[in-house]
């Protein structure tokens, strides 16, 4: 028996770029987008330096992936819930978080909102509708489906969004999330940041699918492939899909095609696995120079302004990390805060016992590990 090709669903994904006829942010917003992209780049550089000099224990960067953060968040409302992975510091910064609060988190200082409970880059900004980051791959995806169901139940037209990598599409909860959102037509946007690697595994080995966006059809979820290094293409597609979701027309999966320009994290050695020559092409597509050229051409910015901005942003980043570095570690009592809303009596007793006898103890850390 021969089965004709037309009797099965086929992949037909095109890469969506910037549409000059499409919706454009105001000049003010364009400038804010550009400034944030610069900030992220300097934040990465600084974090890596801090890590290499042993002042923080670990970092993940987002170099190369700035447009996927900035293009999406600029197209969202401030009350659209965000369930991020560990590579989206741009979201809270866009929404008004200051660099200092991020710095306190990566140092796990006494001023860290999370009380030093998590490793670097695992931020939480509840008042900015940016839910606490987990290290567990994929779990956050379905949280967005839940928040979208909540919007449906409340009858608001908010959307809920989530970010995750190419590797994360293989995780259980990618499936849970799209199953729920697809079945319920929940107003959720799923941003798949395809940076081509899950640690050492190339996306071509991650799945048999031709494109990650092909994964939408199996859930009845609209899915698009977008040039993730073109911040305006990302902006326009996000806006269109968010409006569609707000109208009750259902969720969307946006594959944002980009590339990780740094190693996976400060513990990773990417020379072991990176495809030869692949990087070069992507350096040419770096989203920051691309956007910069566009803004210069459109006259939104001038070269001297660009230079001044870079100096300013770098100084801001430095200042923030300096403050955090000088802040002491949290108090021991914080060790037991936040397990429950109220501290259980037995837990307080156990800590008190420690406090009474072991103040000042500390074990040496055997050094950097691959996280």
């Amino acid at each position, binding site marked *: 028996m021969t089965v004709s090709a037309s009797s099965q669903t086929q992949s037909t994904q095109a890469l969506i770029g910037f549409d000059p006829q499409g919706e454009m942010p105001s000049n003010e917003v364009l400038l804010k987008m550009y400034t944030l992209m610069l900030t992220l780049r300097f934040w990465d550089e600084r974090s890596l330096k801090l890590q290499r000099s042993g002042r923080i224990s670990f970092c993940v960067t987002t170099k190369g992936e700035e447009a996927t953060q900035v293009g999406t968040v600029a197209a969202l409302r401030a009350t659209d819930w965000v369930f991020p992975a560990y590579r989206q510091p741009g979201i809270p910064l866009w929404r008004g978080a200051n660099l200092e609060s991020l710095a306190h988190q990566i140092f796990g200082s006494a001023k860290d909102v999370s009380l030093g409970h998590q490793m670097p880059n695992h931020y939480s900004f509840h008042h900015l509708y940016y839910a606490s980051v987990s290290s567990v791959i994929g779990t956050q995806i379905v949280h967005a489906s839940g928040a979208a169901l909540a919007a449906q139940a409340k009858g608001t037209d908010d959307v809920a969004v989530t970010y995750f990598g190419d590797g994360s599409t293989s995780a259980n909860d990618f*499936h849970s999330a799209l199953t729920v959102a697809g079945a319920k037509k929940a107003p959720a946007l799923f941003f798949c940041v395809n940076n081509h690697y899950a640690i050492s595994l190339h996306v071509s080995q991650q799945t048999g699918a031709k494109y990650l966006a092909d994964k939408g059809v199996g859930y009845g979820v609209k899915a698009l492939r977008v040039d993730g290094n073109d911040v305006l293409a990302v902006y326009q597609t996000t806006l269109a899909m968010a409006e569609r979701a707000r109208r009750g027309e259902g969720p969307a999966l946006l594959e944002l095609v980009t590339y990780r320009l740094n190693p996976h994290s400060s513990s990773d050695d990417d020379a072991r696995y990176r495809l030869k020559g692949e990087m070069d092409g992507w350096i040419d597509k770096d989203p920051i120079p691309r956007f910069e050229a566009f803004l210069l051409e459109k006259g939104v910015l001038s070269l001297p302004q660009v230079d001044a901005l870079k100096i300013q942003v770098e100084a801001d980043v430095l200042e923030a990390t300096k403050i955090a570095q000088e802040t002491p570690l949290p108090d021991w009592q914080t060790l037991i805060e936040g397990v429950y809303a109220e501290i259980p009596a037995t837990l307080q007793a156990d800590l008190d016992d420690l406090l009474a006898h072991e103040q000042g103890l500390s074990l040496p850390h055997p050094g950097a590990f691959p996280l």
Partner: protein
Amino acid sequence: MNATMTPSSQMTSSLIERNPETPITMVQAINEALFQALESNPNVIVFGEDVGISGGVFRATEGLQAQFGEARVIDMPLTEAGIIGSAYGMAVAGMTPVAEIQFADYIFPAFDQIVSEVAKLRYRSGGDCACPMVIRTPYGGGIRGGTYHSQSPEAYFTQTPGIKVVIPSTPADAKGLLLSALQSPDPVLFMEPKRLYRSPKGLVPVDPTPIPLGPARLVQAGKDLSVFCYGAMVDICQAAATKLQESDGVSIEIIDLRTLSPIDEASILASVRKTGRALMVYEAPKTGGYGSEISAIIAEKAVEYLKAPIKRVAGLDTPYPYSLESVYMPHPVRVMRAMQEVLGF
């Protein structure tokens, strides 16, 4: 509201019309609590597999979708991870989700969401975020359900900081504790002993009357032996104690722990310091069960009061069997013999 009620729905009629002096089943009590929560708090959402159109495989959600609509009583696709993960997202977004896992045996596909996410959110964010929710699930044996419809997985969760674990043993406790769980600022795993769903019946207040999470319940006071139990084991311990008190003239204290986590350590220690003898009865495999933790607490903090070994009556260290489950499950006679052993040491 009365006007829109479907007359065929057992629950709604029982809520409105039922005689408070007539005993009801545990499953009715749970249904009533859910109904009253949905009615009084617009943020409550009830969802799970088969909870809507069919009213739940055990009928615990009977009539709720007809009354409160499909946006608040939701039939979910077959994904426990999707159910619990959605509950998390709903809770972060300000709702009060009540998720049903059809059998506790099927909570494992959602284990990562519960243990890594739900239980850890408040701590990992230093209190910035939280996800209060209730996860309801029928658990336990005695219904000829075999390996995958009989398990008692409470100890997987009582060892997990950040989630509360609550198990009722009577219809009244089921309603009162569930109402409190719905007001808890923290996630609660509410495990329902399915063997008790339909019998025995008990008196239950019609008005919503929360019973606080935390304190254990003194089932009967005694001075020679403390028995710690919960869920379907409470009746079995009572039956054993009654028999033994009659035959041997001993005095047995029975404590129904109700809130397993965080634990009511004070009640446990007070009882053992009084009686000097302790017995734990639970359905799960003995090794690593919840009773082991109680034993460890006593051995750590009240060992000098002990007059006898601390004993555990529990399931065998095997998966749950089918043909011989009545041998496997703690039986009153087995409990009685363990009581005698401890008392006669």
